[in-house]
C-alpha cells in the first residue's frame, strides 16, 4: 500500500475552506482505488488527521502519520508548511504545497524535498497584474491598486512582488491589512471608498473573504475590478453577499465545475457507492476541485516514482524523485478525465515551482457559477525569480544548506 496522509482541517475558523479541499483530496484517491485498484496496483491509503489549521496539531499529525512510511504531505496551511519544511527534509519525505506554502521553496537547489508547482503566491500576484495590464492596454501608469490582505505571513507574501511590480509598471500600491479572522473590515473598505483605487487585489482566507466581498458590495465598489487570489475565490466566499457579488473575479489554478469527464467515474465509483468523503455536498466546488487537483498531482508523482524505481511499493525517497521528475501534459490530463483542467508543466531538479500560470474566473450571481474568462496568463518571472533566489539563499545561509543540482 501507498500512504498519503491527509492533514486536513474540518474544525476551527478555517473549516469552511478545509472541508471541501479535504473532501476532494480524499475522493480522488478513493476513485483511483475503486476504479483502478490504486496506483500501479497498490492501494493508496489516505489516513486523515485533523490539524484545525493549528501548527501544533500539524506537528502532531505529521509525527503521527509519518511513521507508516508516509509518502507526501499536503497540509493546506502556510504555517504548518514552514514547520514541516526542515522536518520532511531531514526525514527524507516530501511536502507538496500547490499554490500556498513557502514560495521560495520553488528553488529546488535549496529546498530538496518541497514542491509547490504549478503556481505560488508570488506568481499569483504577478498574474493578477499582468491581467490588469492586458485589460488596460498594457499600461498601469498612474493607476492605483489596493491590496487587501490577511495580516499573517500568508497575506504578506505578495507584498514584495507587488512592490517590485509597482516600480516596474508605475502603479501606486495601497496596502490594507486585515486582522484575523477578519470579521470587521469597515475601516479598510471606507478607505477604499475614499481612495477609489482602480483595482483591488485580495489575499484572504476564511471568513475574511466573505466579509470583504460583502463590504465591497456595500460601498458599491465595482465588482469586476476586484480580484482575489485563488484562495479568495470559493463559492462560500461569494454566496453570502448574494447579488452584490456578481462580477467578482478571482484567480484560478485549475478548472471548476462538473463539466469534466472524471466526474462520471466519480459519481459511479465514489458518491453513488457511498464512499464519498464528508457530507458529499462539496463536489465540483472550487476548493473541492483544488483538493482533487492536489491529489491528482500527487498520484501522478507516485506513478512517476513507480516508473523510475521500477517497483510499485515506492519509498519516500523514491517518491521525492517522482515529484522531481514529474511531467504533466495536456494529453495526460485528458486521459485522466480532466482536460484543460490545469496547466501543463515539467519539474526539474532546480525548478520545483512550475510555470506559475493562472486563469481568471468570474462569479455569476444569478447562475451561481464561476466562469473562466481568460486563458492561462503567464507571470513575470523576471521580477519573481530574483526574489525567489534572494529568499532561498537567505534560508540556505541561515541553515547551512549546500546547493544541489550542480
Amino acid at each position, binding site marked *: 500500500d501507498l500512504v498519503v496522509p491527509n492533514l486536513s482541517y474540518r474544525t476551527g475558523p478555517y473549516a469552511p475552506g478545509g472541508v471541501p479541499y479535504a473532501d476532494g483530496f480524499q475522493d480522488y484517491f478513493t476513485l483511483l482505488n475503486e476504479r483502478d485498484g490504486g496506483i500501479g496496483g497498490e492501494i493508496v491509503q489516505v489516513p486523515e488527521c485533523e490539524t484545525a489549521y493549528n501548527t501544533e496539531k500539524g506537528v502532531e499529525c505529521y509525527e503521527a502519520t509519518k511513521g507508516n512510511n508516509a509518502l507526501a504531505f499536503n497540509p493546506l496551511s502556510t504555517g504548518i508548511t514552514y514547520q514541516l519544511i526542515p522536518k520532511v527534509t531531514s526525514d527524507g519525505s516530501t511536502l507538496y504545497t500547490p499554490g500556498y506554502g513557502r514560495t521560495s521553496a520553488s528553488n529546488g537547489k535549496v529546498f530538496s524535498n518541497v514542491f509547490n508547482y504549478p503556481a505560488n503566491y508570488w506568481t499569483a500576484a504577478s498574474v493578477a497584474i499582468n491581467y490588469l495590464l492586458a485589460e488596460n492596454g498594457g499600461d498601469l501608469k498612474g493607476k492605483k491598486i489596493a491590496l487587501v490582505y490577511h495580516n499573517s505571513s500568508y497575506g504578506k507574501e505578495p507584498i514584495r512582488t507587488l512592490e517590485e511590480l509597482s516600480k516596474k509598471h508605475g502603479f501606486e500600491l495601497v496596502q490594507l491589512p486585515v486582522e484575523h479572522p477578519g470579521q470587521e473590515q469597515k475601516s479598510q473598505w471606507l478607505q477604499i471608498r475614499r481612495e477609489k483605487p482602480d483595482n483591488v487585489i485580495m489575499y484572504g482566507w476564511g471568513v475574511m473573504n466573505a*466579509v470583504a466581498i460583502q463590504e465591497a458590495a456595500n460601498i458599491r465598489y465595482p465588482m469586476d475590478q476586484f480580484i482575489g487570489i485563488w484562495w479568495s475565490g470559493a463559492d462560500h466566499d461569494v454566496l453570502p453577499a448574494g447579488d452584490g457579488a456578481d462580477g467578482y473575479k478571482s484567480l484560478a489554478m485549475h478548472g471548476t465545475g462538473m463539466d469534466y469527464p472524471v466526474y462520471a467515474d466519480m459519481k459511479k465509483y465514489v458518491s453513488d457507492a457511498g464512499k464519498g468523503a464528508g457530507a458529499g455536498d462539496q463536489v465540483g466546488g472550487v476548493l473541492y476541485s483544488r483538493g482533487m487537483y492536489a491529489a491528482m498531482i500527487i498520484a501522478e508523482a507516485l506513478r512517476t516514482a513507480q516508473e523510475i524505481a521500477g517497483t510499485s511499493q515506492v519509498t519516500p525517497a523514491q517518491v521525492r524523485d517522482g515529484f522531481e521528475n514529474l511531467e504533466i501534459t495536456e494529453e495526460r490530463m485528458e486521459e485522466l478525465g480532466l482536460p484543460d483542467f490545469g496547466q501543463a508543466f515539467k519539474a526539474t531538479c532546480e525548478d520545483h515551482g512550475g510555470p506559475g500560470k493562472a486563469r481568471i474566473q468570474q462569479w455569476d450571481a444569478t447562475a451561481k457559477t464561476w466562469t473562466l474568462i481568460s486563458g492561462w496568463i503567464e507571470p513575470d518571472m523576471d521580477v519573481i525569480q530574483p526574489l525567489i533566489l534572494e529568499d532561498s539563499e537567505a534560508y540556505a545561509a541561515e541553515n547551512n544548506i549546500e546547493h544541489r543540482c550542480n
Partner: protein
Amino acid sequence: MMPDTFFFAAEVMVNGLMAGIMYSLVALGFVLIFKASGIFNYAQGVLALFAALTLVGLQDGQIPFSHVINAIFGTDLHHFGWTLPAIVAIALTALVMVGMAIVIERYILKHLVNQEPIILFMATIGLAYFLEGFGDVLWGSDIKKLDVGLPQGVSETIENVTYNWFGYGFFIDKLDIVAALVAAALVIALTLFSQYTKYGRALRAVADDHQAALSVGISLRFIWVLVWSIAGFVALVAGIMWGSKSGVQFSLSLIALKALPVLMLGGFTSIPGAIVGGLIIGMGEKLFEFAIGPMIGGATENWFAYVLALLFLVFRPQGLFGEKIIERV
C-alpha cells in the same frame, strides 16, 4: 482637500460608532450574566454562534445531527424540505436558548454556587468548548448564509441627503442602522428591567453574594435561568446581526474578543456602559486606524481597542459606568 479629509474623518467616525454598536450587542450579553452572577461568561461568543446556527438550521429545515446520522447509518439525510418564515424561526430559536439556559443552570451553575469568579469563568470556558463541538455536530461546520430579511448595503437616502447638504455623501450601512435601533431598544428594555423590577434588584444581589442571596430566599436557579435566557436572546440578536454580515460559521464566536475591550471600558456591570463603551471603542479604533494606522503599518484595530480601554481604566479602574470597587478593611 482639507474639507474632504474632514468629511472623510467624520464618515470614519460615524462608521466607527456604528461598528461599536455591533460590538455592544455582544458585550450586552456579557454584562447581563456578569450582573446577575458575577460570572464572566467566556461562552457568550459561542452562544451567539450557536444561536445563529440554530436559527439558520430551523429556517432551512436542516435535519439536526444529520452529519452524525449519515456517518453512522450511511444515509444521506440533509433537509426536512421546509423553510420557515424568519420570524417563526427566530421565536423558535429563542425558545431553544431558554431551554439551553435551563440545561446550563441544571448541569453546571447549580453545582458551582458560591465559588470564586475565576472558577465560574473556567466553567464557562468548558461550556464554550462543549457548545462549539455540539453546534458543529448538530448543524455541521460549513458556512451558512443567514437571511432574515434585514437590509444591507449603503443607505442611499443618507448618502443623498448628506450629499445635498455637505457636498459629500456619507456612507452608512443599512444593517448598521438596524443594529443601532435594535441595540437602543434592547438597552432601554434591559435597563428598565434591572433598575425597576424586583428581579433586577435580586439580580444585583446575587452578583454581590450568592450565599446571602440564597439566605433571603432568592432562588439562584430561577434568576440564573432567567438571565441566561435573556443573555441567550441577546446572543441571538448579535448572531443575527453578525451572521447577516459574514455568514454563519465558526469565526462568529470570535467576535467575543471584540466585545471584551468594550465591556471593560464600559464596566462589567453596566448596561448603558456596554453601549457607551462600544461607541468609544468603535470610534476610537477606526479613527486611530484612519489617522495613525497608515504610518505604522495598519491593522492596529485589535490592539488599539485594548489600549484605549486600558487608558480609560487607569483613570477609572471599574470602567466608565461600572460599580465602584469597594475597598475596606
